[in-house]
């Protein structure tokens, strides 16, 4: 059972189709990355999940049930366009927003204090928001998003605006929230973070899902059958011919040979390994997996070229 499903969601804005039969499935307790180039329709989909806008057709289901207005309260949403009341004091503002999410005043205050302590920003409590830097405001926004401990957390570009140290901090917090049992969706352009923390992804391009699945499965799917092998090799004859693979490049150094080889169709890693181990001592044997960045660029540019 998926925690959240979007099925055939279509959204038409005047003049262009923002989402064209988009479906995603988010399992519970996982981190789900929503990827895609600018203007692909990610934010529109997140808004529809949040019931900010209604889809023209298609459905959103929580735990298999059609989403209702009450489902909004099971979601913590951090929009990409971040805004808070500039003239209001940070603490007062955080309490106000937390109460709008259904917390009582004492509970809101208690939880906020804990978070402020955690981020070491207690001294900001009585400052006006406009006195804070963009990154600082972002932290407040993050806290407000998670304060009511919703089952589903949605972050739209959570790392933009943070310096590397704070981006990492937020990343750790997101991972911790996952271990606490929250389901998390986030949209991002930061592919390195996708590899690091996402369990599953959906790549949206030109209003359509062009790629989806688990991160490891996708990377395997996109692998180009290239292996990196390092062998111990003393002076002598070195044979590199094989029925199982083709050598792309080889570099010999005293004591070792490093090869980049492509598997021939039908060959299995174990067969290559057996053959090599018969003649040489194997120092390392790794399969090259494409990075999410490469997959992103390849997928997006290939869909672009097919459309042109």
């Amino acid at each position, binding site marked *: 059972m998926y925690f959240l499903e979007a099925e055939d969601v279509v959204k038409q804005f005047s003049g262009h189709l923002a989402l064209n039969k988009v479906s995603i499935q988010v399992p519970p307790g996982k981190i789900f990355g929503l990827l895609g180039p600018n203007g692909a329709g990610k934010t529109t989909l997140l808004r529809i999940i949040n019931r900010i806008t209604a889809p023209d057709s298609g459905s959103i289901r929580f735990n298999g049930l059609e989403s209702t207005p009450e489902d909004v309260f099971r979601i913590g949403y951090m929009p990409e366009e971040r*805004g808070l009341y500039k003239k209001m004091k940070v603490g007062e503002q955080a309490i106000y927003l937390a109460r709008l999410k259904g917390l009582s005043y004492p509970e809101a205050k208690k939880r906020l204090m804990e978070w402020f302590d955690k981020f070491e920003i207690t001294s900001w409590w009585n400052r006006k928001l406009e006195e804070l830097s963009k990154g600082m405001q972002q932290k407040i926004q993050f806290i407000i998003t998670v304060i009511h401990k919703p089952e589903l957390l949605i972050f739209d570009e959570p790392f933009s605006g943070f310096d590397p140290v704070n981006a990492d901090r937020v990343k750790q917090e997101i991972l911790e929230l996952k271990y606490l049992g929250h389901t998390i969706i986030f949209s991002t352009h930061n592919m390195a973070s996708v590899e690091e923390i996402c369990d599953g992804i959906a790549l949206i391009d030109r209003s359509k899902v062009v790629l989806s699945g688990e991160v490891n499965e996708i990377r395997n799917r996109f692998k180009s059958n290239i292996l990196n092998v390092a062998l111990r090799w003393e002076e002598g004859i070195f044979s590199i011919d094989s029925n199982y693979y083709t050598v792309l490049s080889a570099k010999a150094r005293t004591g070792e040979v490093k090869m980049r080889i492509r598997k021939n169709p039908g060959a299995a890693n174990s067969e290559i390994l057996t053959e090599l181990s018969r003649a040489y001592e194997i120092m390392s044997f790794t399969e090259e997996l494409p990075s999410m960045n490469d997959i992103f660029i390849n997928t997006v540019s290939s869909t672009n070229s097919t459309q042109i």
Partner: protein
Amino acid sequence: MNKTAIIIKREYLRRVSKKSFLLVTLLMPFMVAALAFVPLWLSSIRSDDVKTVAIMDATGKYASLFEDTGNFRFINSDKSLDDYRNSDNKEIVAFLNITGDLLQNPKAATLYSEKQIPGELSRLVNQTLEKVLEEEKLTSFNIPNLREIINESKVNFSVQTIKWGADGSENTSSAMAASILGMIFTLIVYTFIVVYGSMVMQGVMEEKTNRIVELMISSVRPFDLMMGKIIGIALVGLTQLFLWGIMTSALIAGGTFLLGGGGAADISAVQQGMSMAQGGGMSMQPGVDMAVMQEVNEWLGIIHSINFVEIGIFFILYFIGGYLLYAAIFAAIGSAINQQEDSNQFIAPVMVFMIFALYAGIYSIDNPDGPLAFWCSMIPFTSPVVMMVRLPYDVPVWELLVSVALLFATAMALTWLSAKIYRVGILMYGKKPSIKEMIKWVKY
């Protein structure tokens, strides 16, 4: 606590706790009073230097009649006008040249000066000479006790107006009092709708340009957000009105107490106040005193005869209804635009309605039961302002009920419509929408 209530609370407290709100609320009554009295006071200030006026009286009859005042000193001079003209005289500001008997030739007196002659001086000269000439003329008729006869025949008349109540009671009414009261209510309602309506617009726009709406919308419904703001700001307005009400009654009560207190002393107190207000500029003649006293009595009666409770209730009703109606429009406008500069295009038509209402109200004062007043007090867009003018004149109950019902029905319909525009508008960034697009949003 319900979410709308939390929003109302924030909108209310945020505005009420502002220093500017406190200052405006406390100072406004004084500022209004100052606006009314400062010009009066300024004009009554006498300049320090006493100006000298030379009188060249060929007849010798008139010069001695001029008495020195705080501002002017009159000297009798035997030099000729040409002497003064040629000499370099700085001390004397004006020259009154009387060449002959004024009864026979009224043009025989002329006031000369090198500068503009102050109006006060020419008035003083006219008054003095008029009095003398009138006396002279009366004497010339040779009728004994003529002065007494004339004084006796001077009558101060004002017709007493009585309105028959439905229960057969008779009430002294005054068109004057009613129109002043109506005018005050009209201006208050008009000002409040404009000021607080645009406050709603500002607030909505602030949330939109701050981009906080997206966050808000994910925890509250757009309708709750809009209503929270509209109601919160309405409460700010009512608070201000309430405080002003208290301050005004405190000022009146304090004033009455200071001026003597007690029922019997009332009239003399008011009378005293009136003579003070007149700045002591004119000294009242003893005969007029009785008339004034009567008039004050009448006024007090009239003020008592006005049904303040009924007017108060309807004032609040129209105030709320009119505010809701226009605030809904302003909220929709605020949600549709992205910048302050874009607001004018949408506000202009709304303001045309408001200003039309104000003028219709002002013109209705002369004929509070006429067709203009009637229709404008029925149309919801103008009724809150125009009905205020008619209220002190005892409007038929059915008219009031129909008008209030229409107003609230329209306000609710507009709120519903605005909520639809608002819901889409607050999330639309980029270019300024056209009216056509806004109509499309309603259908979403």
